[in-house]
């Protein structure tokens, strides 16, 4: 039993170095993605037949690729695309899925049943396959990657939030809100949502990474972003052919991808601690 309130003067996040690292990485990634033009020394898509497959040097920090394009500039510009994929592809399912989960969990009954059946059915398509089918129907391209991930991605959030709602529905403060005579809408949005959304948000942080990976997989299957748009997964995929003689083409985007992924995961982990502690 916890009959004790723990008072803390130091904000919880400050005691979590991992969380701080996560924040630093993500913020840096976001900054990069907002202002690639100030960092990247070259045009990321400009072909230069005089500098093909140049090894990393002062002129080209990360070397050049088979088109003579500056890998550093491409990697920097790719941050924008990848973050976009990660964030856009996550945010819509986060919102839509959370709302569906909220409604289904709270009202239960038929609404819940229908939603869960839909999810059951869609879940029997393996995720990757479903995305591929949708991509082939819609055609290649960024926008369609989003749509495909949206169509599939919301279910995880709906399930997650629904589960939380089912637990929370019986929490005494929700009962208190009902006893107070608040409307369902108010209970759902003011009382329920802020408490259930945190785990969805935490999940979203790691989902960002998975969405970026899905984007990369699509590039691999030839369904990804349109070349010559720089995207880490696409660069990795294109650079595979040169792995033995021009490692830099793939090494750096891989590194950036891993670091960004770690950043988001750390952020998510940290958020868990942060949000949970706040709740207690």
């Amino acid at each position, binding site marked *: 039993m916890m009959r004790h309130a723990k008072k803390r003067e130091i904000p919880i996040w400050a005691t979590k170095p991992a969380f701080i690292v996560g924040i630093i990485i993500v913020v840096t990634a976001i900054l990069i993605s907002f202002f690639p033009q100030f960092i990247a020394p070259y045009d990321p898509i400009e072909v230069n037949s005089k500098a093909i497959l140049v090894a990393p040097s002062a002129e080209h920090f990360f070397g050049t690729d088979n088109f003579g394009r500056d890998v550093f500039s491409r990697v920097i510009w790719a941050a924008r695309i990848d973050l976009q994929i990660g964030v856009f592809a996550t945010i819509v399912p986060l919102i839509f899925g959370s709302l569906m989960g909220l409604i289904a969990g709270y009202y239960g009954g038929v609404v819940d049943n229908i939603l869960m059946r839909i999810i059951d*059915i869609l879940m029997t398509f393996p995720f*990757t396959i479903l995305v591929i089918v949708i991509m082939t129907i819609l055609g290649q391209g960024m926008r369609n990657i989003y749509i495909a991930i949206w169509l599939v991605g919301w279910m995880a959030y709906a399930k997650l939030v629904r589960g939380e709602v089912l637990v929370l529905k019986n929490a005494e403060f929700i009962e208190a809100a009902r006893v107070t005579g608040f409307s369902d809408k108010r209970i759902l949005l003011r009382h329920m949502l802020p408490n259930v959304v945190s785990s969805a948000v935490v999940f979203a942080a790691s989902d960002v990474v998975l969405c970026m990976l899905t984007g990369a997989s699509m590039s691999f299957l030839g369904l990804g972003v349109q070349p010559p748009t720089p995207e880490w997964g696409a660069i990795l995929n294109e650079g595979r052919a040169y792995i033995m003689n021009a490692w830099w083409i793939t090494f750096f985007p891989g590194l950036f*991808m891993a670091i960004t992924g770690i950043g988001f995961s750390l952020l998510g982990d940290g958020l868990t601690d942060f949000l949970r502690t706040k709740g207690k």
Partner: protein
Amino acid sequence: MNGLNYILKRILQIIPVVFIISILIFLMLRAIPGDPARLVLGEKATIESIDAMREKLGLNESYIVQYGKFVKGIVSLDLGTSLTYQRPVIELLRSRVKITLMLTLISTFFSLLISFPLGYYAGKYKDSMFDQIVKSGALAAVSMPSFWIGLLLMILFGVKLRWLPVGGWGNTFIEQIRSLILPGLTMSLLTSALLIRNIRNSVVDISNMDYVDFARSKGISERAVKNRHILRNALISTVTLLLMRMAYMLGGSVIIETVFSLPGIGKLMVDSIFGRDYAVVQALVMLFAMIILMINLLTDIIYSFLDPRVKF
């Protein structure tokens, strides 16, 4: 009784799900642009020959008739003939299902092998150096595309060390197992990372439970505490997660199978989608649906077996 109830219910549920899936996939396939006949004949085909082919393939019939044939096929267990391979679909599936299943099993095995010790000790020595390293390693593994990791593994173990074949599928059992090691490992990395996280957190949580201390207070060995109490309980959520991942791995095997050039159903699925091989895609989707429904059912059964508190 409850268990029986549950299983009956789940089995009955499969019927409408499969039915709806069959409609969905039928329509989705027809929504994809691209003419199968044309694909079969290739770019140098003339318009008449394409039309002849469409006639031959029954693509000129109405959707209702086509769907009817499809359903009739399923019911009579005749999955039709592959357009691209000109073989009965069922025959195509036979060898491939085996490959993908073996791949999934091997990577499941690797996942367990990797994640249990790492996860357990990371949880036990929470916040230690070891924990930090395992955690960041897991995070890094999650954030790199599998085709890339697979490539690195191939270069290291296939080209440089020459321990294992670079992709491909063997004829003898030993060869086949050998050729599944690298893809299995690649595939298991993401799952391992997820499992490690789960196990670590479970171990941390469970170690805090009174029953662990109570078990210790009986004076039993630390190993018994670990196996009987901590791991046994950590297994519950882990196995559920693992089985969920298995379903995912089955579908996500596409990329691994392509990279490692394994003729499994993942790759077949993608090739067939690209090749508009309706019969194969339809059959595969139904197969996937069945497998996943089975895995779900199995998950629930295993779950209730592992956790006696759960009464469906």
